[in-house]
């Protein structure tokens, strides 16, 4: 039986690979769950696009402040050593290569690292890009965390994105409920697979050829 990773396990895998002392931006949804897997001693400094360095999850019972919110407009807290700044400075951090990692959700990632995470195409609804394009081009490493398949069971790891791009050739690594996959010069390279999953099954659920170079520690 395939032991899929839960959302929390995906977030833990994301958090595990980010070294202590890193500067990190976590996108809305799945990415921000990684927050729960660091302790203050890790000194992972979390950036929020709306002007925070040193963001933390709201503590249980802590009074929310409507002027202390994250990118999803949800109340958060701040760690000692944090700072506030305006949007031009915040995006200078993002665009200027000062963040070690950003972690984003996605609709699709291509074998050449193209990212599609902001638009489902011509839906008649107004598309909303937010800060995704700035993070995609600006962070030193771009990690994506997403389900391996869409709800109707089509691959999200693809040869070419069919949806509008957020950035071209920007993604370094993808965490899914089935595997951890690097995007390399040679396309997708699988680093980690969940128990019970065969290589053939993973390839079958993926829209581009996979190489397998599993990292011992993660198998």
């Amino acid at each position, binding site marked *: 039986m395939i032991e899929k990773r839960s959302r929390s396990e995906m977030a833990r895998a994301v958090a595990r690979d980010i070294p202590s002392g890193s500067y990190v931006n976590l996108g809305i949804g799945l990415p921000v769950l990684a927050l729960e897997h660091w302790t203050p001693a890790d000194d992972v400094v979390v950036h*929020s*696009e*709306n*002007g*925070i360095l040193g963001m933390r999850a709201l503590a249980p019972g802590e009074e929310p*402040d*409507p*002027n*202390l*919110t994250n990118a999803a*407009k949800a109340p958060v807290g701040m760690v000692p050593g944090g700072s*506030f*700044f*305006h*949007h*031009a400075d*915040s*995006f200078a951090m*993002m*665009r200027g290569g000062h963040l070690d990692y950003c972690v984003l959700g996605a609709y699709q990632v291509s074998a050449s690292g193209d990212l599609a995470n902001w*638009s489902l195409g011509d839906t*008649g*609804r*107004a*598309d*909303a*890009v*937010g*800060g*995704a*394009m*700035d993070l995609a*081009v*600006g962070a030193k490493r771009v990690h994506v965390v997403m389900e391996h398949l869409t709800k109707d069971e089509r691959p999200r790891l693809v040869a070419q994105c069919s949806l*509008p*791009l*957020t*950035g*071209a050739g920007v993604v370094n690594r993808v965490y899914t409920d089935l595997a951890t996959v690097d995007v390399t010069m040679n396309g997708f390279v699988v680093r980690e697979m969940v128990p019970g999953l065969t290589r053939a099954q993973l390839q079958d659920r993926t829209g581009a050829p996979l190489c397998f170079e599993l990292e011992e520690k993660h198998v």
Partner: protein
Amino acid sequence: MINKFVESIERAVAGIADGSTVLVSGFGVAGQPVELLEALAEQGAAELTVVCNNSGTGEDGLARLIKLGRVRKLIASYPSGTGSHVFAEAFAAGRIEYECVPQGTLAERLRAAGAGLGGFFTPTGYGTALADGKETRVIDGRGHVFEAPLHGDFALVKAENADRWGNLTYRKTGRNFGPLMCMAAATAIVQADRSCELGAMDPESVVTPGIFVQRVVVANGRTA
């Protein structure tokens, strides 16, 4: 004597004409100048171009202006999300134009306007649909998009403290676009939670120097 305080919210929004470009601070609720937006709705200016990161939530503030049909065009990065149904309905019905700008580009275009620059090249959006029709250039091997400054006739901005010269501080993430919009507008109108005496602010901690501000009203209503 310089005294930028005006005595009422109505006076604060006086003179905003039909067809104006109005910059509106806020990221979600944080830093949103709700009272100024409500006063603008009462004031009646129409055919507005509004620049704001979001489109308002619920039925108040910017959402109310949109519902009243006063906004001809919205320039935003993220007008979707919980509570933004008023904009969604207006857009679906073709009652409002919308220009989607990446959030960092939006911030930088405002700053460029305030700083007197003619535009800039950014890697953000290169190779995407948001670069369609825009000038591009490869600089140091990397694709960039040319972006123009974004000037406002007026800015509506929420701050925490203000003095009579218009010096401002903000509260936490309520800062967001406020300082940039004050710079970018010909007339920056600020609603501040509190006023303080000239000289009471630490000169090292002023976030928006008064030179960027034209009117201040103290308005501490429903928002934090």
